[in-house]
């Protein structure tokens, strides 16, 4: 039983880490909390639903489509919503409310287009492995491996490419990066697109095991915030740690408490935790 919980937690945590990475990337480079992150996850689930579930394309092609669609959404958000604000935001609250507005926009547009129906998609693999006395459906193993693959790819790209370095520089000091000749606007756009894409990818992957519906965004946004509150906002290791910890907590919670009490305990615990460590495990302080 314990092994099962741990295994579930790790698998869940890996996909959550993807979400947290996207959120932290956007927060790191633009100092904006992407309230619409959960909605981007939701869009990812729907893209996967239509491409793979309805139109029957190959799962991996559907994944690529998801990345593409979400990247475009990310670009639109950065270019048309947030870039304007950075020039004359009188108060920091303005960008936050804008982010909230964008979240509501995406969610309600989805509600209008897709309706409230809950949907699901066919699994991509059948069968169950039994490892360490825990039952791991083959599909979940594939999900885990995909998530890990994306995380590693992301880390490698951030570390070794010119754009990756530019993003990290931007997160540290915007003005200096600008002075170094980096096209800050373009890099911000790429960063936002990448963040959105990460949310979309985890949505596409989790569409295999979680229900697909228009309202799934809000819950996931809160989870994403919880992850970076735990791990620390704006820092990559923090995002990964936060993602895994939340995955583990959720797994343990559902195993021991079941249902709605799980997140009650988790939210309460996070609030208490933040009293002692306001910046999370490895966070960068705001402002």
């Amino acid at each position: 039983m314990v092994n099962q919980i741990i295994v579930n937690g790790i698998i869940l945590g890996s996909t959550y880490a993807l979400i947290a990475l996207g959120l932290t990337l956007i927060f790191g480079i633009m100092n904006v909390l992407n309230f619409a992150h959960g909605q981007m996850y939701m869009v990812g689930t729907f893209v996967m639903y239509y491409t793979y579930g309805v139109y029957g394309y190959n799962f991996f092609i559907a994944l690529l489509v998801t990345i593409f669609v979400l990247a475009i959404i990310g670009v639109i958000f950065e270019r048309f919503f947030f870039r304007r604000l950075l020039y004359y935001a009188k108060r920091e609250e303005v960008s936050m409310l804008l982010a909230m507005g964008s979240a509501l926009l995406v969610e309600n547009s989805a509600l209008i287009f897709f309706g409230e129906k809950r949907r699901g998609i066919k699994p991509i693999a059948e069968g169950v492995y039994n490892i360490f006395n825990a039952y791991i459906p083959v599909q979940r193993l594939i999900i885990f491996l995909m998530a890990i693959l994306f995380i590693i790819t992301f880390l490698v790209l951030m570390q070794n490419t010119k754009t990756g370095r530019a993003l990290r520089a931007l997160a540290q000091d915007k003005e200096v990066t600008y002075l170094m000749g980096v096209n800050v606007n373009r890099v911000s756009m790429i960063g936002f697109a990448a963040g959105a894409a990460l949310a979309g990818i985890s949505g596409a992957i989790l569409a295999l095991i979680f229900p697909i519906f228009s309202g799934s965004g809000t819950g996931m946004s809160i989870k994403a915030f919880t992850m970076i509150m735990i791990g620390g906002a704006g820092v990559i290791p923090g995002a990964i740690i936060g993602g895994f910890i939340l995955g583990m907590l959720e797994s343990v919670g559902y195993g021991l408490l079941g249902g709605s009490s799980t997140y009650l305990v988790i939210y309460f615990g996070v609030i208490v935790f933040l009293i002692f460590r306001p910046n999370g495990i490895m966070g960068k302080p705001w402002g």
Partner: protein
Amino acid sequence: MINKNRLLGKLNFYIIGIAYLIIIPVVFYNSPYILSIIINASILSCISLGVWLTFVIGRINIGQAAFVGIGGYTTAVLLTKFGISFWICLPLSGIIAALLSLILGFALLRLKGVYFAMITLTLTALMNLVFLNAIFITNGPNGIMNIKRPGALIIGSFTIIPPFGEGNYIPFYYLVAFILVICLVSIWRLYNSRIGWIFQSLRQSETLAQSIGINIVKYRIVAYTICGFLGGIGGSLFTVYIQNIFPESFKIVDSIYYMLYCFLGGLDYIFGPVVGAFLLIISFELLRSIQRYQELIYAIIMIGVMLWLPNGILSLKFYRTIKIRKEKKIGDLRQKMKKRE
């Protein structure tokens, strides 16, 4: 010229006051629909005033719905399970919500900016779950329904307020209007007093405020507690007005709306949240046919306001007078600098 503006401002104020307290109830005496719109907007204004106050001390508070819920459930439970008179429930709801803000404030207000926003968001989500799970008090997902309208307020042998009959909205209108006016006057007095300046100093520089001897912890908590109190009162009023309450009656999106009302009206103006709430609620009723898209439209409005009107509507009204004053000031300053040379 300045006196003229002041006079005009005061006149506006009296006109609105008379319209609100006398004209509307008299004219729409028999039209519960119109009255209910104003009642709704009034309660929302009270709640948003609380959020406004947390903006003044420089915090982004997405947690107000939690306190509205607490106030609402306090009233609902005390009314239905213990039969306590509404007239005690109302202030008690405010006080309990305030107490909770007080306790939470010590922990939460140390955080700023995004972190405070996120934690208050979590608080709202947490409260929804608490209401959902505390079945023995709150009835869980079934909520509490068939809440009776307030009875009479009788002290000794004097009936101060007659019982709220079914279908008659006038007493409710006056109750809510009365509370809103008191809240506005109180907050107005607070904001213009020394304490209001202290609050503003907290937003502009907590470091400086500390160094000149201001106990920033104390004043943050005062503001946050008042905010919670207003939320609690609002929750109590809503509960008894809608006559039911459920765990998700007040959720995150409501917290966001309270903030939107503040922004729409203008964060620099006490009347901001009131203007914002009334404007949105009334326009929505006028556009009844598209109510299905209400949330979508709110989202678009939110984005629009942030992009093009971040200082709110009230900032437009005074734009002309402020511009003239500013130009006069710059002229004066130039003259003074010339004199000094």
